[in-house]
């Protein structure tokens, strides 16, 4: 169904591999936009030692696939790929990658921006920040 276009995995991912998977969809692709989220060393004024991500297995993948399908319905894009890592992530490492491809660039930009916002909104994935003072789950509330 998704041909590996939507993935949640522990290990690092390759941007180039994801771009190739998306490019495989059509020779009519002219513009590709990637969003890559990576682990920053500072957050909320605290020095971060590393991050840990947890997900709801099954539901998280389902939501990412839903984002992919809705992006293809609502934007003029040819294909989209999403990869999100879980488990332990060191500073500077990549966390998430979204690749959108279209004939013309504006559609790919719009779909990519929408997809990362939507991912944050509806995908059951949680980040824990490990600092020298301790560990804290990140969420507005509680």
């Amino acid at each position, binding site marked *: 169904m998704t041909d590996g276009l939507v993935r949640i995995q522990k290990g690092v991912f390759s941007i180039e591999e994801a771009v190739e998977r998306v490019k495989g969809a059509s020779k009519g692709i002219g513009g590709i936009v990637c969003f890559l989220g990576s682990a920053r060393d500072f957050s909320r004024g605290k020095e971060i030692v590393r991050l840990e991500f*947890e997900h*709801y297995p099954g*539901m998280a993948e389902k939501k990412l696939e839903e984002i992919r399908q809705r992006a293809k319905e609502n934007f003029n894009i040819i294909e989209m790929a999403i990869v*999100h890592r879980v488990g332990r992530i060191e500073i500077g490492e990549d966390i998430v990658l979204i690749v959108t491809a279209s004939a013309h660039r504006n559609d790919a930009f719009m779909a990519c921006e929408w997809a990362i916002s939507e991912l*944050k909104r509806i995908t*059951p*994935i*949680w980040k824990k920040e490990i600092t020298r003072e301790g560990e804290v789950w990140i*969420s507005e509330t509680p």
Partner: protein
Amino acid sequence: MITVRFFATLRDMAGVEVKDYPVGEPLTLKELKKRIGDDFPALREIMDSRSILVSVNQEFAKDDSVVRDGDEVAFMPPFSGG
């Protein structure tokens, strides 16, 4: 049996990841929450917070959603992926 899962900070508060509830008749999420609150007093207030998301069989659900034997229910704090 209804399988109830807690994630992230809610799991830490509950002290368990999964808790099974034997059920007879179908019940509403609101009713299930009451039973969970009896077992996990630390969760009682937070479960009703507007920021807590609840799913039934991996789809978002509300207090008046009906759950029945075999369902999987999850309590989830606000997401922070991406």
